[in-house]
């Protein structure tokens, strides 16, 4: 049995909401809320922060695609779109967002279950990748800062590059602080001195 997901659904058809509630229940998931339109969906997502959103596209007030966009702006929640329509325009609008599946009505449990599994796997993959990307970006940023601090040291103390780096490491270990912290301090200090010089 896979993990239990907290799911919010949106469909203007009450029968469809009933069906999804029952169906998800049987799959071992929990439907935390059901919205009747896009606006409600955005509101409920903010409120419940579900793991997954399953929504119809054609709904009054705000359609599923716009709602998915609005949700994505506040929080990364995977979305499965379910629609009776699948014209090129809709598909174009839906793709490129964090829409992870697009099911065409009529759907059955047999369609829904694998779609949920696949969507969640993909979403996690995306999330992991996103985190990795963020870490890498941070590492790159830190590296740049350290290089800059190293440069300042070399200028001020006429040390060679390896010596300057070693000094930075020594300071960090003696102050029991991260190398990047020391580097930032040096840069801040340098900027203060530069201001006075100026």
């Amino acid at each position, binding site marked *: 049995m896979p993990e239990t997901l907290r799911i919010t659904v949106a469909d203007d*058809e009450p*029968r469809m909401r009933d069906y999804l509630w029952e169906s998800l229940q049987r799959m071992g998931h929990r439907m935390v809320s059901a919205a009747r339109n896009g606006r409600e969906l955005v509101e409920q997502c903010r409120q419940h922060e579900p793991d997954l959103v399953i929504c119809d596209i054609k709904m009054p007030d705000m359609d599923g695609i716009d709602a998915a966009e609005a949700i994505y702006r506040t929080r990364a929640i995977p979305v499965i779109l379910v629609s*009776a329509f699948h014209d090129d325009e809709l598909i174009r609008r839906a793709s490129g967002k964090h829409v992870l*599946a697009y099911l065409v*009505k*009529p759907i*059955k449990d047999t369609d829904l279950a694998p779609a949920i599994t696949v969507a969640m796997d993909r979403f996690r993959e995306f999330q992991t990748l996103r985190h990795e990307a963020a870490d890498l970006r941070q590492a790159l940023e830190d590296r740049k800062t350290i290089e800059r601090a190293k440069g300042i040291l070399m200028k001020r103390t006429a040390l060679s590059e390896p010596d300057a780096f070693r000094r930075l490491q020594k300071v960090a270990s003696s102050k029991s602080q991260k190398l990047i912290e020391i580097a930032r301090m040096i840069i801040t200090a340098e900027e203060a001195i530069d201001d006075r010089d100026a």
Partner: protein
Amino acid sequence: MSTSSEHVTRPLTFKYVFALALLAALAIVNFVILRIAILDSQQVHAIVQHGSRERVLLLRTAMLAERLIFSTDNAERDHVRRELAGTIERLERTHLELMLPEAPRRPAPASVKAIYEHAPLLLDSEMRNYVLHVRSIAEGPDEDLHAANVHFNYVRNPETIDKIVAGLDAVVAAYERASAATTTQLRLLATWSITSTLVLLVLNGWFVFRPMVYRVRTDMGALNELNATLERRVAERTADAERRAELLAQSEAALRESETLYRSLVDHLPMCVMRKDAEGRFTFANDRFCQLVQKPLAAILGRTDADFYPQAMADKYRDDDRRVMQKDCVFQDVEQHQTPDGRWIFVEVLKSPLRDASGSIIGTQTVFWDVTDRKEAEQRAIHAERLAAVGQMVAGVAHESRNALQQIQACAQLLDWQLAGDSPKQELIADLQRAQDRLHRLFDELRGFSSPRHLELRPCNLCTIMTDAWSAIESQRAGRDADLCELHADLPPVMADPFQLEQVFRNILENALAACDDPVRIEVDCHEVANDDVQALEILIRDNGPGLTPEQQQRIFEPFFTTKTRGTGLGMAIVKQIVEAHGGAIAARNAATGAEFSITLPLHSQSLAETATGHASLGESHA
């Protein structure tokens, strides 16, 4: 030219004739003068002769008279007397002739008459006297014959004789004088005559012959000129004629060329051209028509449509021809036409009336050509248009029906859950769900069939696709004794849309499963074929079922043709559509064991790949 010549010639001719007349007149005058001269000389000669004879006779009478006088003998006397009488008679006659010439042309000159009748030389009377005296002697009695006879004395008197002779001489002289005068006159006349002749000749020469010669010369010149002109004209005409002949030859050549061109055009037209007379007999047919009816031209001319076509068709053509001729109109139509070898084709027909030089209608000309391809293309286009319209509608319906289907699905599912444990009711719900499934599938197939098919071509292994298809219908095979035998060797990959091709195989296999009783044996045989230089792959799918009825063979690929109780009727139509979208072909027939489907797919469908890869279809998630 001729009138002016006449104008000049006429006075000249008149002059010439006049000159000739003058010459003739002169000749006549000369002749008359000569004649007069001859007559005169004859007369003078006669006068001189008569004068001398008279003189001799005179002397003889005198001598005879003397002899008589002095004769003694009677016999002698008688003889002399007779002789004297004869001589007197001759003398009288001569004298008379002298006095009255026999045919005097001219009267004796006045001088002669004077000598005859007037003193002192009264010749005539003297002569008469003398004759009387001599006659008196000659006829007087013998007694008077003596010297003293008065008559004798008179005769003897020499004066008498002299007088007469002088008279005679005078007459002769007078005649001679008259003759001389006449001669002088004649000489003058001759001089005048010759002079006038010469003058006339000169005048003629100057005024008639010279202009005439001049005229003749100018005329000759003109004639020569005319001749030259004529010759030039003849030459010109000849050249002209030659040129015309050349032109004629050229135009004949051009005509021949044009004829050849026309024949080659008419014979090689991709149309049948023929002409018929008013009775519908062929008078002309081009090669194309001859080929169509498979007869030489000679076997066509003079025949009618009835000789080549079934009666009903021939009658129709004859009616059309008649209408064209009667109404003098052009007839154009597309009609069905059965060729003599029995094929039915569509032809576009154009009939028009034929006219002779006077403009009256003498027959018809018919041109017709095969428009079967066009007609079929039109029909296909109409069919495609209709399909497209239906497709649009169906697609709309299919879309709109999805919500309803979802509703049915959701409710049925909910009901099923709520009735868990109640098998009979759940059975009903299962039926409901199956019905909903079928409807769903029908809508999907309809939409797929009616919308333009886009292929995503990639190199595919047919074996894999076939195996996938066989696996996909596993649910249908459940509980059946069914086997798939693949008999193909190593096959080259074929450019195809694997998903659509799988649908093809799936549909065919499903059909086979539905048609055959257990145990089902389906054989698949693939091999390469070369069709019109195109390398292709032929896939044969044979089952061991009852085969196809003739109607099924003919209509199996038509939409909504189905013999199954549960089928959309679109399966095989979709199969055909997909295969044709791949540039392939499909045929259904009966093999020894059962039905056989033959699918031919081109191996190198580059052009197809170019056109198809652009339309990557976004896959739908429906099963």
